[in-house]
């Protein structure tokens, strides 16, 4: 399922989307959800290999907005937990997503 994923950098760690803090960017590795739900997420830009940046959230941190593939999509934590990512860089805002 993976598109051109960069060679793993030494400092990168596999983790889930829910662990990203605002401004963190990561590369999506996989979606652990039923096929239809995973497809829906992919149609919205959550395609493996895509860069995701964590954005603002509702009060209490749930749901959270993610910048992916040129749009901003809000996910509940229960969904974000199912998306595994590899952390790329931290603490840098306004990353332009890779096409």
């Amino acid at each position: 399922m993976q598109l051109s994923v960069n060679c793993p950098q030494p400092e990168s760690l596999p983790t889930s989307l829910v662990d990203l803090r605002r401004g963190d960017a990561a590369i999506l590795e996989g979606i652990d959800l039923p096929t239809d739900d995973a497809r829906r997420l992919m149609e919205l830009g959550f395609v493996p290999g895509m860069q995701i940046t964590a954005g603002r959230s509702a009060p209490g941190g749930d749901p959270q907005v993610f910048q992916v593939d040129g749009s901003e999509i809000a996910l509940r934590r229960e969904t974000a937990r199912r998306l595994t990512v590899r952390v790329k860089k931290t603490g840098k805002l306004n990353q332009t997503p890779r096409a």
Partner: protein
Amino acid sequence: MSGCSDCGRCNSSAVVVEFPSSRTAPKTVAVIGPPNSGKTTLFNRLTGLHQKVANFPGVTVEQHTGIAALPDGRTVQLIDLPGVYSLQPRSEDEQVAHDVLTGQRADTPKPEAVLLVLDSTNMARHLMLAAPILALGMPTLVILNMGDDLRSRGGRVDLQKLSAELGAPVALISARRGEGVDQVFDFLAGAMPKPSPKQLPVLQDVPKCRQWAGHVGAQALYRAPAPPKWTRRLDAVFLHPVAGPLLFLAVVVAIFQIIFNVADPSKDAVDWLIQHSGNWIAALLPNGLFKSLLIDGIWTGVGSVIVFLPQVLLLFLCIGILEDSGYLARAALIADRTMAKVGLQGKSFIPLLSAYACAVPAIMSTRTIENKRDRIATILIAPFMTCSARLPVYTLVIAAFIPRRPLVGWLLSARAGAMLGLYVLGFLAAVLTARLLKSSVLKSGRTPFLLEMPSYRWPTFSSLGLRLLDRSKVFLKRAGTIILVVTVILWAMCHLPYTNGKPPEIANSVAGTIGRTFEPVIKPLGFNWKIGIGLITAVAARETIIATLGTIYGMDPETNKEGMQTALQHDLTPGGAVALLIFFAFAMQCISTIAVVRRETGGWKWPILQFSYMTGLAYVGALAAAHLIH
């Protein structure tokens, strides 16, 4: 030349479809695009006021069709399909889009061409929808909308190269500003070539589709625009941990104030207009059956519904501004956690809030909820919210039975406390019902909640105006059909059978007979047959009970000297009064709501279930009250 477009290699000469020469049969063209691509704005631009809204038969998907007049005088019928991300038929929206485009819906003609609307500021992702559309082999114009945004944020795209890559004509437009819309008319008027894309991906494989879209974008030298600066700045305020919820509350209070306070004078004005026009017509007509039917039946009955039109329009104006500006998505985000506690989601919030004014527009506004089960759950609980039609009933009964004395010092009088209690009661019933539904028949825990945050934009007058016009048409059409029929039937039941050329006493009329037959059922609740008739007529609309009781007490020699409140005190014990209030808090006494639920859920199943449940709850609640309070 058939099959030429399928091989994917031939891209030199486009296949030209003959334009039908007959003027009597305008060709049909479908408009499709992902949500937030500005598809509807373009549709409005192209068709203006020449559009109509209906539901696709059998489903809850709204069908907008319109007529676009071409510069040469010919016309084209446009179908605005629901916003979809793909043509894989999984949701009802996608199923409808898929079926219309492939000519599988018997009620809709197969379109001869497609206008594919994409957001140019998000072209790489939106192009994913181009693959299944081009694969249909229908003449397609690829429209890159929001060209003004793309330009101002420093993005660009080579249209010639993109067109060559897709094998279809491409137009960069701004539907909001009207820029480039003539290119769409040119396409509709011209010879429409079949598409011949250089290559297409495997449609079932989303990552492959995305890769293809990225490749096409790269070939077309697409440069994505800079992130929207103003959207980020506004989100820093609207999604601020402290300021965000406060602004959200301010918006909620403002809407509440508008639909209650601002709408009231306009409601009174319409009421005045209806009454005076009724009196004026009554003066022209000779006394008799026809006059009674027209004035007492139709004018008053239908009029009592039309008075809600200003309120409905104001509510839709508020929702329209929130939705078009992009704030509605942020409001849904903020409300999501609270709504999740009862098993619903953020998008259910605005419909439930508006149900405090009237359940009818509230149920109509659940269209913003894409998740079908969440939408139905919201529709089912909306009538529990204390709507404005319950207010006159509550006011009357409370004034008759609860003395004017303080409950909590000068802060809260006993009457205001009772009113507040009824609001809380309705809210609790809604919340508990939502929990019940979401943990049983409407469970949808497995569908993830996805909410796209569109960029903030200024709402346009034309789009808001068309929206209000749409809603007025839908509303008035219902008042003119279902409500009219029910009103006439009720009137007839109160005036028949005719004896010696005179209508009967109310107790002996058909309605009175039904009321007395029905009396044993409601006797345990502490209601007599007069209240019973009130309950029956209140099925048409809750506040009708007041008019009905007014008529009955007026016709009854025992009570015709007394005021309404005194008469009520004769008819009801305090326990019966509380039972009546509880009955009104729970029961679904509103023919418009039943009709709108049927329309929005596409069948009788849900309205029947909802009516039975609410009536059952009302009966049990009232029974308990009548036995506990003496």
